[in-house]
């Protein structure tokens, strides 16, 4: 068995209804696993950027890229080099804060992780944190003893470092 790794694929697609279906359907049909996916408008209007994290060996990833390239609504597909990218994920975390001690502990942890408190109630705090997936995992792990009520994560988004860009050629 060839070695499986996580790979991040950045794609520029037509920003129109059905594109997400077409892309996710391709993954389902060919048995590729999406670990996570994030979608949003790209720098040019009418286009969207999909950042897809997929697990597999090199041959699988090569097929993913080639098959994505075949989709008419997919304009550009790039495999990002893990050594030269910035990846970020945003997460909202609602955690129990039932007494003053818990509240101040959580706020201390938040400062260390550069998370922010975005909502407060008498029983809970909502934190916002941005960073790599590992950092968010670690933060959530730390909050667990207090009782994590809800977590919403955006999934990973990424760009390559430096001036080089994944853009559409005219």
């Amino acid at each position: 068995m060839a070695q499986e790794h996580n790979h991040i694929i950045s794609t520029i697609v037509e920003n129109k209804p059905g594109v997400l279906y077409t892309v996710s359907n391709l993954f389902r049909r060919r048995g590729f696993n999406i670990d996570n996916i994030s979608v949003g408008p790209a720098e040019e209007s009418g286009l969207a950027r999909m950042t897809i994290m997929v697990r597999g060996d090199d041959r699988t990833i090569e097929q993913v890229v080639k098959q994505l390239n075949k989709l008419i609504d997919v304009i550009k597909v790039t495999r990002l080099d893990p050594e030269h990218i910035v990846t970020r994920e945003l997460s909202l975390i609602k955690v129990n804060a039932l007494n003053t001690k818990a509240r101040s502990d959580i706020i201390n942890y938040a400062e260390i992780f550069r998370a922010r408190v975005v909502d407060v109630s008498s029983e809970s705090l909502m934190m916002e944190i941005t960073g790599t997936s590992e950092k968010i995992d670690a933060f959530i792990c730390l909050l667990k003893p207090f009782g994590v009520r809800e977590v919403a994560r955006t999934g990973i988004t990424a760009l390559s470092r430096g001036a080089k860009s994944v853009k559409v050629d005219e």
Partner: protein
Amino acid sequence: MARMSGAKALTEALKREKVENIFGIIGGALLPIHDVLSDSGIRHIIARHEQGAAHAADGYARASGRAGVCMATSGPGATNLVTGIANAYLDSSPVIALTGQVNAYSATSSYMIGRDAFQEADIIGITTPITKYNCQVKSASEIPKAVRMTFHIATTGRPGPALIDIPKDTQTKIEEMDFPSNIQIRGYKPNIEPHPIQVKKAVKLLLKAERPIILAGGGTITSNASPELLQIAELLMAPVATTFMGKSCFPENHPLSMGNIGMHGTRVANKVILEADVILAIGTRFQDRSTGTLDDFCPDAKIIHIDIDAAEIGKNVDVEVPIVADAKVTLKLIHQQLVHRIKKKEGSPWVDRVKELKDKFLSEMDFGEGDLTSPKLLKELRRILPKNAIVATEVGQNQMWAALHFQTYKPRTFISSGGLGTMGFGFPASIGAKVACPSCPVVDIAGDGSFRMTEQELGTSVTEDIPVIVVILNNSMLGMVAQWQRLFYNRKYAAVELGSLPDFAKLAQSYGAEGTRVGSLKEFSAAMKKALKNEVTTVIDVPISPEADVFPMVPPGKGLKDTIAGM
């Protein structure tokens, strides 16, 4: 710019694409289109089932090399096309499907699709995995561009089916129409020209090769590369094996022709390819039915793989020289560079070896016991038919016998469902082929099981005066499955005996076609000659032994080296 209805714009756009025929069945959601289409000069051929319409469009496309068009109404009409679309997808055939859809907007402009109206089906969702491209128009003025895009995408690069879903209200709305002639699609730019360095590498490898073989697939036919293929083969004195989809791209009466490789390939093709040191593979996807188990497929040979679809390269086999480009353009370049550096070979140990093997296996070929066997019949059929005749097949034993024993000489004269293996494809496809090539005789080689899946298209063939000849190799069985049960399931028959069969001759006659049953090879010849002369739709029912097997065969899960000649 001109003002017209969506239906009118559709027919105008189709005429600009040089569409002359549409195979289809009308329905509620197509009424506005048919109202205009009937005066447009485009011929609408009524199929008896939408699956037949899709297969006919496919047969038309394969015989002509142009897009074939089918049309069906919303809901069940559209879903009945699905098998035909999937079939075209797996065989890379440019079929355009037009489907009616329920109204997109109500009179008060609220969006209506998705409310499960009468005869509403999400055909876009359903066909996304089996089309190269599909789209639903939301307003009348989108129709001309949708047609241009769909035809462009379906017929260029690696061809494939495409679908336009047309809500009924967009057909009647009158809007300003703009008919684009050229369109830029940012996400779609097939690569035609090969990379010069890759061509050089291929040439170098071919010059060094001691035992070269050419493996020609369906892409050779799609890109009309047969003349270039012949030139290179003769220059290199390289044997040419075809995949099932490549059959007809190389004249099979040529000394260098090896026939098909694969599960039911010829013994010589399956042997020779394993002895080759360099394989020039053209427009093939190395599918399991062609290669057998991949570990045993030419492990030491170096492969040059030409394909217009980058995703096919490296998908199943490792390749020494990948070339993503059009086959015809690439072969021309390879030939140009070879011709300066090679003297036409008269002979070589490899050529002698290939000839020796071919002669040996030909002399051992088994045509079966008795007078009227499928192999003997197909040999006789070839003798009777002119070279330009088109043969379609159904799926199963009939298909594999045809591949083995019916020689083809010209590209696009062998039409068969290779990828999906759709029983019932051959008959409607032969109707489509006949529409594309009215001056060529068209014969469907059928089995009794397959024919019954689309036999109602006899109505189309007779009513529309599209005469084709159906030869039913009738063993009252689902013969190929029965063969597997004989070989691999201890002869235990399950769900393969069809029991009471119709009298196919009478069935044909009841539709107004000719029908006859023959009992000997001589009677078959006479019936065939009569059918060719009469030019009316004819069904020739040929009883064959239910015990007859197709051999040679590579057992499932085995490699080409394990080809068995017979029992």
